[in-house]
């Protein structure tokens, strides 16, 4: 198998982030292969969102490198051209669908703006693509023309996904993107994300504390605690047969039939 070596779309090496002396991310390395999806799990303050923000370019690493599709992006982009190229490599969908959209902009306009930024397409080609993306995320024509205040949380999150996909990124970061959704809507959006991956080959980096969502959407998982990776491996193995005490603790804290909640001291000494 000489040419079957899979190509990593994302390579993170020895990443570190300090905020005025406090270490938020410490020596983190992860790889993501094309078409695969990676979960980053851990409790609040474990550094998972900081990693996401560094990958997308919203924070600069203190040390370490981030390479996406062979291009280094550890330093801020110096030109509009470079920023656009980075936008075509990585996009992000945030947790809160209520604050991540421009309140005066319809879904169509939000998607169209991204298309104008990234492509020199004539108007009719752009509007055809807008319609395609709106359709892909399951919004109807009325919702496409609506401003965010006229949409529900689930619909807004679909707009945010359509807008992120407009740049045709190789990697889509989902930072707790389905956490705030109602259970019945969350299932719809998770099915949608699986369909989009099948259709486009995009890779997901899922930042989540919801281990059931992690199981459903990702192949690989890294578990973080206090800025460091404590365990990594195939998602199914990490969840079914956790090795690190912290992963075992996370797993034990998920409510399920017959579950007995225990105080932390009791769990950790067990």
């Amino acid at each position, binding site marked *: 198998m000489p040419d079957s070596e899979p190509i990593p779309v994302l390579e993170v090496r020895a990443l570190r982030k300090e905020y005025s002396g406090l270490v938020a991310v410490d020596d983190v390395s992860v790889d993501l292969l094309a078409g695969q999806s990676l979960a980053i799990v851990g409790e609040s303050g474990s550094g998972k969102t900081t990693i996401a923000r560094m990958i997308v370019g919203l924070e600069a690493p203190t040390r370490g490198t981030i390479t996406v599709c062979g291009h280094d992006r550890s330093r801020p982009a110096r030109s509009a051209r470079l920023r656009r190229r980075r936008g075509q490599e990585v996009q992000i969908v945030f947790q809160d669908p209520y604050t991540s959209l421009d309140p005066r902009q319809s879904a169509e306009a939000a998607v169209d703006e991204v298309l104008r930024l990234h492509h020199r397409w004539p108007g009719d080609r752009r509007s055809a693509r807008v319609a395609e993306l709106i359709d892909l995320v399951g919004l109807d024509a009325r919702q496409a023309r609506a401003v965010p205040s006229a949409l529900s949380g689930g619909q807004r999150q679909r707009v945010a996904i359509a807008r992120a996909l407009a740049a045709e990124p190789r990697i889509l970061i989902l930072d707790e993107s389905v956490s705030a959704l109602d*259970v*019945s809507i969350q*299932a719809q959006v998770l099915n949608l994300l699986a369909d989009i991956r099948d259709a486009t080959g995009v890779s997901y980096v899922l930042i989540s504390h919801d*281990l059931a969502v992690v199981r459903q959407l990702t192949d690989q998982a890294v578990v973080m605690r206090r800025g460091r990776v404590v365990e990594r491996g195939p998602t199914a193995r990490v969840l079914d047969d956790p090795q690190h005490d912290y992963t075992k603790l996370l797993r034990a804290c998920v409510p399920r039939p017959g579950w007995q909640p*225990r105080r*932390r001291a009791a769990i950790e000494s067990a």
Partner: protein
Amino acid sequence: MSAAAPTAGLDEAHGPPLLKVTGLTVKLPVDGTRRAVLRDVSLELRPGEALGLVGESGSGKSMTARAIDRLLPPGAQVDGMITFDGQNVGALSGAQLRAYRLQVAMVFQDPRAHVNPVRRIGDFMTEALRTNRDLPADEARHRAITVLGQVGIEDGDRRLRQYPHELSGGMLQRVMIAAALLTGPRLLLADEPTTALDVITQSEMVAILDDLRRDYGLAMLFITHDLELAAAICDRTAVMYAGQIVEVRSSARLHDDPLHPYTAALAAARPDIAMTVGRLRAIPGRPLSAFEAPTGECAFAPRCAHVQDACRSTPPPLIGLAGGLSRCIRAHELRGRLEAAGA
């Protein structure tokens, strides 16, 4: 006991209910019209019992708690009856209402939205004791430190001198629970108290609530969108949809033997931590608020996989079945066929 009575699932040996809500219907003024947020909600809670109240956005679960604590917005039109320890809650005012609220404590999802950011934790915690119970300041502080210890905060003396922004979300929520306990309540209304917390902190928080409930004989109405969480810590669980209660069931049986198609669909829509499925069984459409839902038929009918013509001709009553209640006219024939998650 009649099978159709709203007390189904209650053990009568435990005596009269502490809280009884009967036929509660609430309408709120919106843009000049009155919109229903609750329709005919009835529930009972015994002393020391934990009842889960589960539902999606707009189902009315928070409004139910607010109505019980008399915290509805101005202009709300309330029909039906709420009694606490035999007392008509709707008729309380002034000193009586304040005395009632000392017995009914509330904990919210977002502690930061319910605490004054420029006052120290100590001032916040001891205010009710000093103003309503006329306790001297040092005794109030001493009591505050004791309850902080009960919620797992050992350095209470230091915490009382801190401001809310100096505490993490989990720590602040513990403070809120401790503050709620200070006035010696008999009922705790917990409105998504762990939703903003990570799973480890959530586990610890519900363990604390569980301990306190046993130590104090506290009754608890635990509001959550998480069916599994409610089932894990509550004796009984009530499921709400579009402002109505659609199922009440002992928590132990809710997962394996649901009585309403919505409960089963909700459980089946959740991804499973133990396995990846090809597609999740999503419920079509979106959850409706009471005012949007059809009133002449079953409110869940537009999204239900088991809908028949009969479901669309009349609003279904709550019927007693297998020790629980279901607002589904097909509940009997569908029983055992409503498969929950993992099926």
